[in-house]
């Protein structure tokens, strides 16, 4: 579709771009103590973008802007998800970031980047969209500029992030050289049509996995995660572990089913060239979850622990990538939503409790179950859900992930996954133990503002609800993937 006609299908992104400009101008007019207004405007902007994106659901598959991006239900699903994650993050940030409107402007730019990431259809757009999310994330990670940890986090993040993007782009250059195209569909046709040699395709694939793996925190490109997650401001840590990661996984799936594989039947994909991609992904998934879980065991800082746990969860999700069928992708899409709520919940508890407890160490949570029972119970639910214990949403998500791989006879992978779940129980349960079983002699009750409690409930309810009634969401995820087969 040509550029002019594409605009009508590009409303959410256009609206976000316009909002960014308007908020920058509004910021200039506001006095120093009124900057929080930009936060309200940002919530409003993302909310409108959320509904505009939602309205695009069930649009027929369209290729926009001369094939640069595509609009399909898969993209819309992830657009809605990432918009929701930005809204939650703005709410999490509001109490702490009251004076800097730049923060909210940058969050909106990242949201626009994530929207583009999930609908890319061209190698160039992949690079641009990922850099859009990446460059702004580097700034956000170092947003507390007087905090040494935050600076360090952002410096490490930017240097190795830039390097990983470079490696990915180098992989893209070989893909371009092999096929002569930058459009993903054209590449798919060229690879299938010319039956290329496997080796260069495989190496290019590995290089691209390095770049994408860095963004979604996959082992062995995870080394930045613990430092960045500990050093960055807590809301940004929460955001990086959900929003950009969801967009990264969406991009990964899109890359896998165009450049690496193509639809074979109504539900499965076969590889364009036999390059052992599933095996490589399976090995990476195993390494990722095992290393994430084992490293999380000894952590004393709760943000660092959640950082390693985020690595492990990427491993669980990658596990379902190996099957290359709709069941696997549906499971990942479902798990991403569940993960968003439980992870944001855990980080929100950390964010709202840190001023009261005075520390981010797990030991500071001692006796929280008696000091503020609601928060402690909520935290316990989030921890159990992250472990994957029924009846919470995390359990359902894991069931779908494991079902997808067992159906395709990846038994070893499933067993390793279950063992990892058991390992993770140890460090998640440790937090619960500290909160409820250890107690001080005198109990100093904590008073939590209404805002904090309301937001806590808003994050807690989906975790509880999706644990008992998940049908509609899984149907939605399943529908969204359907277009790849033209239905």
């Amino acid at each position, binding site marked *: 579709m040509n550029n002019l006609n594409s605009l009508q299908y590009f409303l959410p992104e256009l609206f976000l771009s316009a909002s960014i400009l308007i908020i920058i101008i509004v910021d200039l007019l506001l006095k120093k103590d009124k900057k929080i207004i930009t936060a309200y405007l940002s919530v409003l902007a993302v909310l409108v973008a959320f509904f505009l994106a939602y309205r695009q659901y069930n649009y027929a598959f369209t290729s926009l802007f001369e094939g640069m991006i595509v609009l399909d239900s898969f993209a819309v699903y992830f657009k809605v998800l990432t918009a929701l994650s930005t809204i939650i993050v703005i709410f999490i940030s509001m109490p702490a970031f009251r004076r800097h409107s*730049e923060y909210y402007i940058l969050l909106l730019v990242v949201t626009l980047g994530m929207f583009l990431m999930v609908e890319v259809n061209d190698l160039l757009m992949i690079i641009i969209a990922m850099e859009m999310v990446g460059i702004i994330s*580097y700034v*956000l990670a170092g947003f507390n500029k007087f905090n040494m940890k935050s600076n360090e986090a952002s410096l490490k993040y930017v240097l190795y992030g830039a390097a990983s993007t470079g490696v990915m782009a180098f992989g893209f250059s070989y893909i371009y050289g092999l096929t002569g195209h930058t459009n993903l569909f054209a590449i798919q046709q060229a690879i299938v049509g010319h039956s290329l040699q496997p080796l260069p395709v495989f190496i290019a694939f590995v290089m691209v996995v390095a770049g994408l793996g860095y963004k979604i925190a996959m082992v062995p490109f995870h080394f930045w995660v613990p430092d960045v997650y500990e050093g960055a401001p807590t809301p940004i840590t929460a955001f990086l572990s959900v929003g950009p990661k969801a967009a990264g996984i969406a991009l990964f799936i899109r890359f896998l089913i165009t450049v690496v594989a193509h639809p074979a039947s109504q539900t499965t994909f076969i590889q364009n060239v036999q390059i052992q991609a599933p095996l490589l992904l399976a090995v990476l998934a195993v390494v990722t979850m095992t290393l994430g879980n084992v490293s999380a065991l000894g952590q004393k800082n709760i943000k660092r622990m959640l950082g390693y746990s985020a690595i492990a969860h990427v491993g669980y999700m990658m596990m379902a990538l190996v099957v290359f069928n709709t069941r696997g992708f549906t499971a990942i899409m479902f798990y991403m939503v569940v993960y968003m709520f439980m992870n944001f919940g855990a980080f929100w508890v950390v964010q709202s409790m840190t001023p009261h407890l005075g520390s981010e160490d797990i030991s500071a949570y001692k006796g929280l179950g008696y000091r503020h029972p609601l928060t402690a119970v909520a935290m316990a639910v989030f921890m159990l859900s992250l472990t994957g214990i029924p009846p919470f949403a995390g359990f359902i998500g894991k069931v779908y992930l494991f079902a997808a791989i067992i159906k395709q006879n990846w038994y070893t992978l499933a067993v390793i996954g279950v063992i990892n779940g058991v390992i993770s129980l140890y460090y998640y349960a440790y937090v619960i133990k500290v909160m409820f079983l250890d107690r001080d002699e005198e109990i100093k009750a904590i008073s939590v503002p209404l805002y904090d409690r309301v937001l806590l409930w808003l994050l807690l309810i989906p975790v509880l609800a999706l644990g008992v009634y998940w049908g509609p969401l899984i149907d939605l995820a399943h529908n969204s993937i359907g277009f790849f087969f033209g239905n």
Partner: protein
Amino acid sequence: MEATQVLFWFIAVVTILSAGIVAFSSKLIHSAFALLATLVGFAAFYVYLGADFLAVAQIMIYVGGILILIIFGVMMTHRIYDTSKRTAHNSLILSLLGGAAMAAILGMIIFRSPWTATVFKTLKPTTSMIGTSILTNYLLPFEVISVLLLGALVGAVYLARREEDEE
């Protein structure tokens, strides 16, 4: 061998040697100036490849912009007169191993698969083609990257500016 080929290989050797200095030099300011030679060498390759616009852009943006930024960085973080100061390094052996592994992989890609030219183009100016493409097929990346630059600008200004009234 033709004169153009001799010149090409001369530029190639200079570029690779200066890239080597960037990598191995223990004085940061030497690396920065070696990077200048590498970047100019790349611009020469672009001329050989018939990419006239990119050769100019390479000189203007990389040499005139990015390299100046980097030299600023070197000068502000290491006092300029202190060129004798050596920077610390990670283990040479491990880094060389990493580089060698990468080289082996790339060598396999390049030598074990056929890379033959499939189209033969006559050299002609590309600037108007690039201009037309940017306003037609590449309109979306062009617009999107302007938002990205705006965001990077806001972020970089925020990080670099001094705040009088805080801490």
